[in-house]
């Protein structure tokens, strides 16, 4: 059994690595031969650029700015959205009044809010974090809301017949029930948070990966653009792995 599992995971990872190598290899080979490397750059150039940035100390300078905005916004948005979702699920008729407005706001392309936030708060940290929050909060809200609505009625009835206090209901049934939903929203929101952070930096900033991408674009430096994109991707992958580990811990009963 364990032997078969190990073989299976070897097969999966082997396939992934080979696929990645083939794609990067094709890119490397066709760039400069089939296509002009000015437009599509090259994996080797990107790696070279990353080393250059490390040497000059600009890598961490940009990465940390984006990471900070994304993580702070993600945390604030997740907490606020989840609390609003829980609160609204228990608010009775109030929920029916508010819900259509929330959905209307959700349908807004939140990217277009970036200029507004800059007018309000300038191009500092605040407007960028707010942008991330705007991206993240809806998914967090919706998942928490649905999570509450999907709690098994029998479990709540059972707690009721035991005369459990509100706090006991929260800790034994409600929080564990919505954990699955909150983790799902956290996972979806990693991407959203990075989009928010990068967009805010594209609109107005003097550091961060979004800024680095616009700056490179202004210099017609495609390698710079691809480097920025690659770094954003790496951040997303690492953050997602953190959530996967968290899921493994919290959902081991499944």
């Amino acid at each position, binding site marked *: 059994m364990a032997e078969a599992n190990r073989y299976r995971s070897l097969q999966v990872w082997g396939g992934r690595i080979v696929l990645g190598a083939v794609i990067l290899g094709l890119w490397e080979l066709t760039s400069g031969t089939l296509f002009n490397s000015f437009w599509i750059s090259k994996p080797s150039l990107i790696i070279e650029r990353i080393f250059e940035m490390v040497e000059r100390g600009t890598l961490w300078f940009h990465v940390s700015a984006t990471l900070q905005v994304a993580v702070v916004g993600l945390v604030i948005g997740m907490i606020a959205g989840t609390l609003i979702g829980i609160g609204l699920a228990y608010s009775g008729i109030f929920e029916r009044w508010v819900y259509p407005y929330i959905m209307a706001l959700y349908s807004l392309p939140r990217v277009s809010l970036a200029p507004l936030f800059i007018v309000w708060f300038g191009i500092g940290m605040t407007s960028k974090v707010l942008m991330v929050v705007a991206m993240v909060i809806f998914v967090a809200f919706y998942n928490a809301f649905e999570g509450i609505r999907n709690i098994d009625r029998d479990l709540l009835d059972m707690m*009721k*017949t*035991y005369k459990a206090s509100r706090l*006991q209901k929260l800790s*034994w*049934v409600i929080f*564990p029930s919505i954990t699955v939903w909150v983790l799902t929203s956290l996972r979806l929101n990693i991407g959203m948070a990075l989009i928010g952070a990068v967009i805010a930096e594209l609109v107005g900033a003097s550091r961060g990966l979004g800024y680095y991408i616009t700056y490179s674009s202004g210099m017609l430096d495609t390698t710079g653009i691809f480097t920025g994109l690659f770094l954003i991707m790496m951040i997303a992958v690492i953050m997602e792995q953190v959530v996967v580990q968290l899921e493994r811990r919290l959902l081991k*009963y499944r």
Partner: protein
Amino acid sequence: MMMKRQEKLQIDQLTVRYTTRETSTTALEGVDLHVGEGEFVSVVGPSGCGKSTLLKVASGLLKPAAGEARLDGRVINGVTGEVGMVFQNDALLPWKTVFDNVRLPLAVKGLSRSDQATEVRRLLAMVGLSEFEDFYPKQLSGGMKKRVALARTFAYDPDLYLMDEPFGPLDAQTRVKIGEEFLKIWEKVGKSVLFITHDIEEAIALSDRVVVMSSRPGRIKAEFEVNLERPRPFYEIRFDSRFKELQRQIWNCMAEDEQKGGV
């Protein structure tokens, strides 16, 4: 005025309606039912006859439209904390281990940690699950989950057990086995039970009295005293001639209803 014997649960002229936007369905109408101290009463009837609704009223989870339910002579108004429900689907917390699931009612009651642990271990030994205290419900078979749910209810130690087709989802063999174990433990505990089932044999084998309900709206149709001695062998009792006779009577009583209803 006549002095009435104090009943554990006394239900008088109970009517329950479910109202949705368009329709109002009468789930129960004019139901009279009582469960004496230490008595085991089963309710049998076709599905959709409001058997579960009856339990919800008795537990205080549902308010009746008319009539009333009394527990120890006091009108049930909201959850009383003296009844223990056993649900058809066990209602175990999937994110808690067997140990913690059984510990739940003890923690709610506010017992000390060490008292909780001692009591949980005692109950798990009683239902034969000592080896499984660190397992999650998902890792257990249907019969084992049922044992955990029963152990949890025994941990709560209510005055009145309300059981909603608790053995329904089990396969025939497990059903008999769990039923037998439950009967043995119950005969020691001796608390009042209101037991809902659609299995006539199970009802007779367990009960002191079997109540037959008709459907739409749910009414009490007939009552049968089960005069079989206790402790009784849960399985072998089925071959007793008195059992057979009772089974035939209850069956006929229920079949009548179906013909009339044309189902």
